[in-house]
């Protein structure tokens, strides 16, 4: 009976339908007046496509079935001429209450169908998502990589960072970033285990002393003393000019890696070396820029251009804070403190080029030996 009913109903309604094919190959039937709201579909219809199931209109690849149904909902509402502006506005407001991912997909799909009002609407919604958020939050929302160095981040808008509080925040953020970066590197190198070098620590040091040859990390020894040495090396290597990253943070980074469960302890050494070398490269690059700006202070190797305008009291406070941070994560603090002081006396950071950084290791090495 239902079939008979539908047979009776069909001729009475007499609506025109078009056939649309999405990227996954599925074909849908849509009322023509609704689909015509999209300029892209309109053009296709005028060129004769879409009138039957065998000749559906192929929609652009960015339009997948869920997005298509959202877009059709939009079209279905707005193509009715009798609606008031208020109605349309409130529909729009509710329509864009989607998750960020779907918003982005929807924007992309609407753009490929040339549906400009919807693109405007979703762009506005995305702008509202971005507005007022900090870079970290934005990165998290959109899954963007944090691949700028601290210096690059400061560069264009450096002058707005006059406020010392902002600088302090930057330092702390930078430290956190470094730690996260460490974790990433460790994760990555974990994957690339076949590249782990089997050379001993001594080999590594001799390479560093000797010059820039093969750059493979080495050592799988877990000796505590060696670890500490490596931490020292790591510490100095990672001190980048212009970056507010004290020793403690890098140490903390390493320490954290050792203490947390994220990193498989077996891999900790080769991965650490991977990171060591990476930081070496970083140090080399960035130290070239501003060697004269590294003030050999009695404190950590904090960035010096940022230090310029901070009064000493604040600086001490900052350093104290750094220490606290480190202490919380690092039980070997007293020993390390000694290292820091010792190193600073030796003025290891008179670095002008890549070779200069190597000198650092020499001094430490000699001291340790």
């Amino acid at each position: 009976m239902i079939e008979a009913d539908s047979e009776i109903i069909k001729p009475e309604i007499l609506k025109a339908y078009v056939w649309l094919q999405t990227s996954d190959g599925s074909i849908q039937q849509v009322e023509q007046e609704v689909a015509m709201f999209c300029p892209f579909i309109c053009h296709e219809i005028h060129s004769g496509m879409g009138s039957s199931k065998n000749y559906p209109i192929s929609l652009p690849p960015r339009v997948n079935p869920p997005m298509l149904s959202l877009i059709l909902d939009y079209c279905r509402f707005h193509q009715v001429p009798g609606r008031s502006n208020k109605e349309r506005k409130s529909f729009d407001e509710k329509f864009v209450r989607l998750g960020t991912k779907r918003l982005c997909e929807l924007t992309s799909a609407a753009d490929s169908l040339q549906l400009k009002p919807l693109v405007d609407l979703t762009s506005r919604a995305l702008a509202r998502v971005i507005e007022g958020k900090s870079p970290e939050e934005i990165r998290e929302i959109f899954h963007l990589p944090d691949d700028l160095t601290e210096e690059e981040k400061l560069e264009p808008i450096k002058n707005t960072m006059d406020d010392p509080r902002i600088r302090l925040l930057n330092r702390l953020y930078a430290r956190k970033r470094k730690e996260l970066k460490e974790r990433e590197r460790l994760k990555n190198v974990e994957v690339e285990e076949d590249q782990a070098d089997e050379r001993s620590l001594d080999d590594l040091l001799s390479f560093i002393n000797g010059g820039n040859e093969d750059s493979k990390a080495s050592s799988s020894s877990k000796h505590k003393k060696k670890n500490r040495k490596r931490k020292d090396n790591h510490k100095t290597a990672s001190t980048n000019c212009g970056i507010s990253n004290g020793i403690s943070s890098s140490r903390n980074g390493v320490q954290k890696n050792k203490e947390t469960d994220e990193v498989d302890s077996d891999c900790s050494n080769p991965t650490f070396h991977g990171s060591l070398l990476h930081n070496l490269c970083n140090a080399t690059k960035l130290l070239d820029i501003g060697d004269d700006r590294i003030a050999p202070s009695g404190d950590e190797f904090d960035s010096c251009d940022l230090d310029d305008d901070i009064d000493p009291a604040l600086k001490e406070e900052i350093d104290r804070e750094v220490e606290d941070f480190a202490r919380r994560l690092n039980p070997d603090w007293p020993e390390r403190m000694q290292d820091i002081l010792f190193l600073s006396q030796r003025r290891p950071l008179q670095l002008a080029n890549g070779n200069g950084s190597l000198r650092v290791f020499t001094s430490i090495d000699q001291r340790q030996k």
Partner: protein
Amino acid sequence: MEKDSDCDLISDLPESIIETILTKLPIRDAVRTSVISTRWRYRWASMTHLVFDDRSATDYTDPNTVRDRVENFVTKFLLLHNGPIHKFSICSSHLGACPIDQWLLFISRKDVKEVVIELGEDEWFRAPSCLFSCKNLTGLELVYCELNPPPNFKGFPWLKNLNLHQIAIPPDDIECLISSCPLLENLSMSYFDGVELTIRAPNLKYLVLEGEFKDICLANTPRLVNVSVLMYMTDHIANHFEQSSSCNFDKFLGGVPKLERLTGHLYFTKFLSIGNRNERRPMTYHQLKFIELYQVSFEDINEVLVVLKLIVNCPNLKSLQISGSTSAGARDPDLQFWDKNISEDFTLHELKTVKLTDVSGVPLEMRFIKFLLEHSPVLEEMTVTPSSYVTEGRLSMLIDLVSFRRASPQASIVFVHKSI
């Protein structure tokens, strides 16, 4: 770029969409995107629509600090910007005297198309001459500024939209400016006090005027579609009106055959009534569908004549809105002219809605309502709102209304009675 399980959602959207999103952010937030990731580092720097407004203003309360910071921000932004600039808009009440000259010079070299400048009201800025060298301007909006076009200024050949509010400019120059922009479609001017304005703009479609104009003459505006005028009155202008000999109605509405919408406030109807003579056969406004005339004084027979003249020549009028104004000294008007001037079979074929507000119930007004009801066969709704100054006359108003003959069977009269 790292490949996480949830990969980057947004950076792969087309550039035009990214630009749209960045443009919809307060400009400070757009710049902040530079620290998100490498791909986003300089995306903000290729924005083509720059809108600096108080949305990006900092939270500092000291106005000097705010001003300095805003200035610094704009200057640095422009310095770091890369690429063409199509729109430059700066609306900030914090800025008075600022490096606007330098900014405009920079912008003028970047092929700018739209410029909006609204700075603080206290110190009007002087528009630098580089503004006049922006040849590709399609839109210009200036508020609180002094304009002095250089002598060899030939106009903006592509200008479509011109908005000038509280501008100090020599009167001849303003007429020159308007007439030297051949593509001008949209003109909006306010607070040009004491100016006798003649507008020559062959492509002009939308006109909005507000101020104490001595005189307005639409000399060459054949394409005008929408006119809205708000005229203030001063004694000076009143004197001028009394001494004027020309027919304002013809001067203003003589050359606008395509007019669709006419809106007049305050003394506009009075202005139109000056020098009104029925010598020339008035033109028929076939397209005029919406008329809104506010503060029409129904005690002045001249003004009523103007309204009638207008209505009689608008066969396709759809909607009429008139608000009355009370003035002292109601004379006993001569109602005979009505039957003399208007033939019995005159009809407003399309008139569907009439809204009358501030009705004071004076004889001419009631006669006018009667006239409308008698000659509108398709009228659907007439709303009458009595003036709040009228307290006792409401009942007689209502009695009269009910007694009028209606040409339209579906006409309903809504008498809006608000308790005082």
